[in-house]
């Protein structure tokens, strides 16, 4: 019926119809890929067999000096961290990042993590585990159980099932753990509901911190049924062209209690003229416990002074003192210190837990370790304007120093440590002929996206380009499965 009808059509008409149809289908396909109406799409990049016509969605690794593109089958990560960006035609809520790699790393770099840029002001990446050799080792030797996606490891089989263990943990006590949870429990990618208390706590005294600190900082405060008043004097250096907003957040656990935001009109960008600002955060009748304060500012700002109503105040993981004055003493609870000087004038020999360490090169990160068993380790700086980092806390006096977090299975964790329990949100990578594949689930809601690109990080803490070893992480494939709202949800919800 149709055949004789079609036969009547001239060749040119049929050919044009065919090409028109192809054109229509092609344009429609690209529009479909732009909209992703069902909310799910996967982008991948194969670094070994990849053949592609377009630019692709997963862009190359940066910075170039931390990636060796010549020696291996795939790019080799030789310095920590490396970044790559993912172009997406629309926003998504979740990403499952799968990395296929060969682990040519040494024992001093047991952790591989990956994440997405969550906050571009303080440059914070939300990191998730990819590989943790300490956990992989203990999973084979300790008593292992899994529940609700969590991994429970115990040195001795004190608990026969995880439910019993979770019940005890919720009450803040575990079997054979008389000295407190922090002495026997280690965590990884997991924050248990744990109510930290300071024994023999005396009511707080006011504290004035007049040692200027550059850039974003976070600190813990501890109080007991008291009013918390924090007065911040801040300075915008106006050395760069970007606006310098101030965001100060008070939280407890994962709950935000209050926050203060001060926008920046950016009237004098790049002028070098300083602008003084003041923010007060006050919260009355706070119940006993630990509170976290996040001062989210750019590194073009300085926290000149903090007047606090409580004296138990410890900075989390990082401080960047910048008074440009004489010697400075501060304290930390960790056994290692990462130090970086961005100014050649800050190069010096510093004292950490009584030992001298040389900070001999600018822009290079130095790792200083101590075997000291003292609870608080003293850091004596001849000059400041150096960035001090570790996995512990910092304070200006030993009486202020406290660390409410549980020890972590990080790169400094030793499997010989005297801990009895480990809780981790972690899955061991699968391995075939030395090639490992691991995945991390990342939250993209609120993740920073610029020009349609999300920024990702791959981190191997401790991996250095200039340490004289051939340690590297050879990456073969990256796959990102994205999940977001469907077109119908976008229209109707």
């Amino acid at each position: 019926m149709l055949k004789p009808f079609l036969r009547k059509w001239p060749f040119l008409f049929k050919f044009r119809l065919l090409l028109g149809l192809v054109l229509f289908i092609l344009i429609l396909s690209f529009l479909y890929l732009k909209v992703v109406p069902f909310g799910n799409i996967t982008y991948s990049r194969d670094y070994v067999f990849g053949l592609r016509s377009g630019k692709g969605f997963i862009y190359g690794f940066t910075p170039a000096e931390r990636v060796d593109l010549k020696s291996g089958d795939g790019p080799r990560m030789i310095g920590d961290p490396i970044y790559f960006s993912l172009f997406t035609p629309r926003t998504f809520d979740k990403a499952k990042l799968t990395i296929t790699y060969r682990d040519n790393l040494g024992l001093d770099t047991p952790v591989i993590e990956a994440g997405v840029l969550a906050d571009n002001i303080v440059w914070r990446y939300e990191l998730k585990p990819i590989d943790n050799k300490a956990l992989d080792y203990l999973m084979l030797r300790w008593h292992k159980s899994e529940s609700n996606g969590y991994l429970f490891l115990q040195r001795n089989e004190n608990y026969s099932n995880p439910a019993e263990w979770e019940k005890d943990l919720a009450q803040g006590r575990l079997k054979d753990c008389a000295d407190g949870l922090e002495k026997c429990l280690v965590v990884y990618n997991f924050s248990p509901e744990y109510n930290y208390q300071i024994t023999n706590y005396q009511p707080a005294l006011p504290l004035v911190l007049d040692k200027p600190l550059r850039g974003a900082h976070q600190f813990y405060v501890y109080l007991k049924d008291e009013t918390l008043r924090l007065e911040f004097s801040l300075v915008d250096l106006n050395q760069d062209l970007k606006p310098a907003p101030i965001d100060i957040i008070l939280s407890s656990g994962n709950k935000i209690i209050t926050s203060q935001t001060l926008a920046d009109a950016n009237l004098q960008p790049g002028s070098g003229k300083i602008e003084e600002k003041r923010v007060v955060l006050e919260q009355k009748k706070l119940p006993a416990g630990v509170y976290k304060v996040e001062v989210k500012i750019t590194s073009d700002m300085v926290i000149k002074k903090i007047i606090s109503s409580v004296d138990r105040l410890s900075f989390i993981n990082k401080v960047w003192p910048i008074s440009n004055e004489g010697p400075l003493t501060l304290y930390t609870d960790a056994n290692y210190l990462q130090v970086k000087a961005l100014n050649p004038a800050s190069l010096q020999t510093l004292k950490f837990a009584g030992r001298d360490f040389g900070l001999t090169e600018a822009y290079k990160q130095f790792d200083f370790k101590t075997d000291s068993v003292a609870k608080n380790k003293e850091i004596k700086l001849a000059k400041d304007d150096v960035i001090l980092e570790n996995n512990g806390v910092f304070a200006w006096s030993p009486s202020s120093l406290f660390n409410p977090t549980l020890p972590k299975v990080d790169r400094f964790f030793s499997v010989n440590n005297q801990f009895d329990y480990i809780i981790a949100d972690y899955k061991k990578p699968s391995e075939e002929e030395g090639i490992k594949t691991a995945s991390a689930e990342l939250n993209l809601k609120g993740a920073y996206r610029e020009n349609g690109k999300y920024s990702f990080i791959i981190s191997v803490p401790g991996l250095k380009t200039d340490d004289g070893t051939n340690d590297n992480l050879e990456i073969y494939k990256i796959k990102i499965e994205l999940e977001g709202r469907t077109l119908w949800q976008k229209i109707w919800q």
Partner: protein
Amino acid sequence: MAKNLAIISRELFYFSSVLLLAFIILEIIWPNIILSYFNLNYLWVFAVLTGFICLIKK
């Protein structure tokens, strides 16, 4: 045969030119929507090639 080739090359030239134009417009509206998947240089070369054949056959 030569006549058919001329017609086909002409039609393919029109098709690739319209497609190239459509892709460029889509790229201007939503950057990277096409370039992430496909390098437009290939289409441009195809359009030039068919256009050239079309000219010769004319």
